[in-house]
């Protein structure tokens, strides 16, 4: 069986510290997977290895059956892998529409074109407006991102990833720092993503995240402790020990 994402014996060591230690994951196409764990568990390091930002010390990463372990990070979006970041890093001096245009250009051959002038009448901007509409920001297309609220920036962050029509989407704490209403809005937005996109999400907000996930993996000190459906993971004694201390 070909998995959307298959991680085999993934290890990442910084000196003598193993940040991810022999991690194995198998995520089926269309699945909603949640990765949880306390701070420093190695969740973002795992994401960074999947996206190629970090090279693993050992182990392999396969996306839809293709070994991408040593594929350059910039090549991965072209095979359908997109991500959002824990700490927002958008183009703050540019408009919301231009941010999305950059995301659209990123997976288009047009990005090399030095003779095609980019203007607001460009079809890419029309596509960007559609994306912004999907994240309820169509009226903010011409606003500079740096002037937007944190919640709006989070929405653009997801909009950027979705504009690349990913087959595998990695969401790194998409609800972090948001108000209750904003969390619910983002949760609905993520729930509306079609099943053609497989989602792997890191999240601390258990109320929202557990409702979303079909498969949950608990990481602790770089090791995969428990994996399974919601009830299996929540009722596991190790989970209680890690989160409740008993």
């Amino acid at each position, binding site marked *: 069986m070909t998995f959307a994402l298959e991680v085999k014996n993934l290890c990442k060591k910084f000196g003598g510290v193993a940040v991810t230690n022999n991690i194995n994951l198998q995520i089926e196409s269309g699945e909603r997977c949640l990765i949880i764990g306390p701070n420093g568990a190695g969740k973002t390091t795992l994401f960074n290895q999947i996206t190629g930002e970090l090279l693993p010390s050992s182990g392999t990463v396969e996306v839809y059956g293709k070994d991408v372990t040593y594929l350059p990070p*910039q090549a991965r*979006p072209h095979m359908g892998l997109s*991500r959002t970041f824990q700490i927002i890093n*958008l*183009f703050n001096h540019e408009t919301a529409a231009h941010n999305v245009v950059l995301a659209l250009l990123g997976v288009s051959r047009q*990005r090399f074109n*030095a*003779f095609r002038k*980019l203007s607001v009448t460009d079809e890419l901007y029309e596509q960007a407006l559609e994306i912004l509409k999907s994240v309820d920001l169509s009226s903010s297309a011409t606003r500079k991102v740096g002037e937007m609220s944190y919640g709006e920036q989070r929405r653009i962050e997801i909009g950027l990833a979705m504009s*690349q029509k990913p087959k595998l989407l990695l969401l790194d704490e998409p609800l972090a720092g948001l108000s209750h209403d904003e969390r619910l809005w983002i949760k609905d937005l993520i729930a509306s993503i079609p099943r053609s996109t497989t989602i792997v999400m890191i999240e601390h907000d258990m109320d929202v995240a557990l409702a979303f996930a079909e498969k949950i993996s608990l990481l602790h000190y770089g090791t995969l402790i428990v994996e399974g459906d919601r009830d299996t993971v929540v009722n596991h004694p190790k989970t209680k020990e890690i989160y409740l201390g008993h």
Partner: protein
Amino acid sequence: MKNWRQLLILCAVFVLALLPLYGDEYFVNLASQALIAVIFASSLNLLVGYAGLTSLGHACFLGLAAYLSAWMGINLGLEHAVTAPAALLLTTLIGMVFGWIALRATGLGFLMLTLALSQIVWGLAYRWVAVTNGDNGLSGLTRPSPFGIDLEVSSHFFWFTLLITLVCLGLIRQIVQSAFGASIKGTRDQPRRMTALGYNVWAIRWFTYVAASFFGAVAGLLYVYFHKFIHPSVMAITMSAESLLCVIAGGSGTLLGPVFGAILVVILKNYASAYIERWNMLLGFVFLFIVIFLPKGIVSSNLNFLKSKAGKKP
């Protein structure tokens, strides 16, 4: 606002083109030098302003093109029609290699690598006497005569330089306003995000470096045609720093910034030095004034001021 700006630029170009008709030869030559500095500063602006890569070695491309053209003319007896494209091509090829080396680092590392590379070229120009004539430089050079137009006449040379400057600025404008230009600015602002979006950040920076070396070479050709002499000092760190000063003073990351910056520096260097003995000090004071009161440079700061007057957010 945009139409108003375009009209103003067209008027300025028109008035400038008429300069030889009402200005004496000194001013025409001064304007030619300013135009060469404009091309050179604009080429550096591609790196500094748009790609966010501060180089302290850009003068090596100006010097390389000038030396290559002069050497081929003197030693191989080749015509300008051959030496000019050959010098441009060879300098751009060297730019490809230098870019590959310098872009192993960013920030301060990149700055030091560009400085080191240019110092190697500068040292070669000084020490490789058999080829460069060392400290004596290469002299006895001529200006080309494209389509039978004698560029030895200062007004002809000025119009020729103006035409080349407009073509170069047009090309640079085309690049920075294109899809590729958006990629260049993206790598300056958020390289990590750009990689995650599928851009090869290193390759984009390398192409920008190569383009900057090409336009620097164009400035080098015009420089050697104007002076009819080339000396290793054109590749010294002071030349690179002066060009960086033009970019910062005018406003990096804007098309018109290096234009105003270069004109200001050339005027201060050549015109004010005739009246003020300590003109270097004056240049320093002007730079200090700009950095303190117009930190984004002459063009950006004034545009922000005009926008705020018009009721728009800067």
